């Protein structure tokens, strides 16, 4: 006997599953209260950065106000010793810090992906060389390297600093990307793609990289956090053009002018807290992405909750559940 239609009907019971699965990654991400808080926090800073010109009441570098005023209705974060409005500086600083942080984070991730994936996919001598370079960058303490480079680069703007941070901070990501790419490269679909004539470039870009999105996203988050901290550290040490307005330079000026000792907490608390909150938002989102990537990390519900959920579900969908033998 032959063809009892082997054609498998693919329509059966799939549309629902499809919808279910497609959103599940995003759902898991947003269902997690931590990543949600992270996203909201981050969104807030993004809004501030985008609408900085509308939100900031004054020109951030204008020095026309009274010096070292504590917070008041007209200067809700007070003023600096140069008579600048701290709130306006904070708002504009959000923009600079965010651009530098995200820019450096994204750039270093791009470098990490390029180097890591190339090394992981091509293997052999290319891998050995790239991996050695990567290892050297990896074991070098980042800030020390940055500072040493700064000593040869004069007068750097926050953006220049972002660039330097990105150029020195990609190694950890590259390492992760490399091992990920190695795993993916050993998958059969890569071999299949090669068999169907795809070029190396095409394989890296269309076959490997899309499968690393979560790792890449996670790396971006981590790199952004590191970049924001590095930038503020550099600025604090004075390795940044102090005419620019970023949270880092705000901290630099407040510390140079003894904001703390003269009790001007309104000057140094906002930028520090801003960095901490922005950093936390990156960390929280990263945490969420980790849970999407690795289902094992999802914290399971407590026993109590499971029982409760079970009851609810059973009540709401009695018809689908097997009942006792009798019927």
């Amino acid at each position, binding site marked *: 006997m032959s063809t009892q239609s082997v054609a498998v009907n693919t329509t059966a019971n799939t549309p629902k599953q499809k919808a279910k699965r497609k959103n599940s990654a995003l759902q898991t991400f947003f269902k997690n209260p931590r990543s949600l808080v992270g996203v909201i926090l981050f969104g807030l800073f993004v809004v501030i950065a985008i609408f900085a010109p509308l939100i900031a009441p004054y020109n951030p570098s204008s020095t026309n106000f009274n010096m070292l005023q504590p917070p008041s209705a007209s200067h809700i974060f007070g003023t600096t*010793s*140069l008579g600048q409005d701290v709130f306006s500086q904070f708002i504009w600083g959000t923009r600079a810090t965010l651009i530098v942080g995200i820019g450096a984070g994204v750039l270093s991730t791009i470098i990490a992906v390029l180097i890591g994936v190339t090394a992981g996919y091509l293997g052999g001598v290319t891998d050995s060389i790239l991996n050695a370079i990567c290892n050297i960058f990896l074991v070098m303490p980042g800030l020390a390297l940055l500072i040493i480079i700064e000593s040869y680069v*004069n*007068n750097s703007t926050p953006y220049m600093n972002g660039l330097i941070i990105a150029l020195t901070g990609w190694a950890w990501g590259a390492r992760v990307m490399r091992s990920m790419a190695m795993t993916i490269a050993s998958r059969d679909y890569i071999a299949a793609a090669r068999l169907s004539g795809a070029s190396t470039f095409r394989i890296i870009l269309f076959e490997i990289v899309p499968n690393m999105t979560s790792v890449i996203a996670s790396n971006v988050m981590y790199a952004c956090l590191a970049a924001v901290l590095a930038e503020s550290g550099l600025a604090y040490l004075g390795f940044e*053009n*102090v005419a620019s307005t970023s949270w880092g330079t705000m901290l630099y000026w407040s510390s140079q*002018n003894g904001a703390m*000792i003269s009790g001007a907490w309104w000057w140094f608390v906002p930028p520090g807290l801003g960095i901490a909150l922005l950093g936390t938002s990156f960390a929280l989102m990263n945490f969420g992405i980790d849970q999407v990537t690795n289902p094992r990390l999802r914290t399971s519900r407590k026993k109590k909750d499971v029982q409760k959920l079970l009851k609810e579900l059973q009540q709401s969908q009695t018809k689908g559940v097997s009942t006792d033998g009798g019927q």
Partner: protein
Amino acid sequence: TTNASNSTSTSGNQSVTTSASQGSASTSSAVLTVAPNVTGSFADNFNPFSGTNSVDGTLGNIYETMFYFDNTTGKQFDLLGKSFAFSNGGKTLTVQLQNKAKWTDGVPFTANDVVFTFESLKKYPDADTNGIWQQLVSVKAQGKYTVVFNFKAPNIPFAEQYVLGGTYIVPQHQWSKLGDPAKAKITHANAIGTGPFKISYFSSQDYKFTANEQYYGGAPAVKTLNYPAFSSNSSADLALASGEIQYAGINIPDIQKTFVAADPKHNHYYFPPNNPVELYPNLRNPLLAQLSVREAISLAIDRNALSQKGETGYEQPAVPTSLVLPPQKAWLDPNLPAADKSFTVNDAKAVKLLEAAGFKKDKNGIFAKGGQELSFNLLTVSGWSDWDEDALLIKQQLQKVGINVNVQQDQYTAYYNSIDPGAGQTPHFDLAISWTNTGPTPYTTYYDMLDSNGSFNIEGYKNPSLDAVFNKFAATSSLSQQKQYMYQVERVAAEQLPVIPLLDGALWFEYNDAKFTGFSTQSNLWIDPSPYNYQSAAIVMDRLKPVN
């Protein structure tokens, strides 16, 4: 201002720290903690020929010059020298030396030590950073306590500043074996001097001196000097505000609130003006070479804003002559026109001047002539935050009159290379904030800044008639004549604006007189009070008296 009962109020605060760090209260009362400036960490270098590279106290506390000429008061203090006299038309200098001085290893100090020191500089030119042997012909001892110097040409300011007041005498019996003095390894273990203090303890974050009991001027009352290191202004500020330091030269913000208020009875400060801070226009730039442009810039700068905001009120606006007033009041030409005596902001006049010179505002709102905008880079040093702030303020002020300024902060080396790239090289900058050299008379400042051969003529000013005035000044020791020459220079400075004075740079000086009194204070300013002026600080600390 000292009062025994009041010292308990501070020690209430301090007892927590001291008891926790197990310090014994009895010894700490005889200790004077000094923070001449914010130094990150110390290297064990007590070589007086290392200049600023040796740790504070090397010069003054241990090694001494023959005399000290105080810039602030104009006074002369005798150290290893008792007296000096010029003869032979200013070409010969005879010095009588101390006959009671002893090196700290017990060997007596003699004229041979002085001769040896100068001969060493001749033998090892790299140690002669002041270029003494470019002026000097010979040094001879006459007996045990007399030395005679012969110069190529009369240059009395030079002789006073560098030979008598700028060369630290080292013991021949030790240094004759050391070779090149600039490379000699002098550490806390082998530093032998004649000064009032001896080094007693050294680590990279803290070092101490004890009183030299055999000091020819009598043993100092302060038995221990303590020099801790601070990484940054803010950490030094905190230490000063919390009473850990008694004698400091730190720019601490909001000093009334942060320092004085902590202990109003004993915490005092005085920031006397010391050296003018200038805005140097590069006169090789054809735009800046025009007097009207310089004048417009000068008119638009609000020096009061710089003083209040940039310098938090610690430094006063400068005067057009670049004289530091009141200290150099004696040198001020009494007949100077009022306009040359002080600056006033006048944006309207600045605009008018520029328009008269043929400048027109272009579409960017910047004055321009022949397609050339009045747009300049303003160079400052990155990390010198008050200058950086001043630069930001100047940028805003000049913007208002249609002059564009880009603030450019460079690391110190790059900055210095731009303004003074070395012999034969042209400086490359448009505008730069920078300092002036100072000396016992305005001559030093003016000569270095305005003479064609001046060592700090970075703006490139050339005026043969002024050069001639400087030559005449150097050759005379008559005060009234000297003054006449200076009056001429003052006018040129104020009216030609070869450099644009901004502020009178201050000396930083804070002190706590709960334990010791006798500082040079605002009411009794007997010497440069700052702790970072090596010789004057040593003299101050030598003469301090304990409260009880």
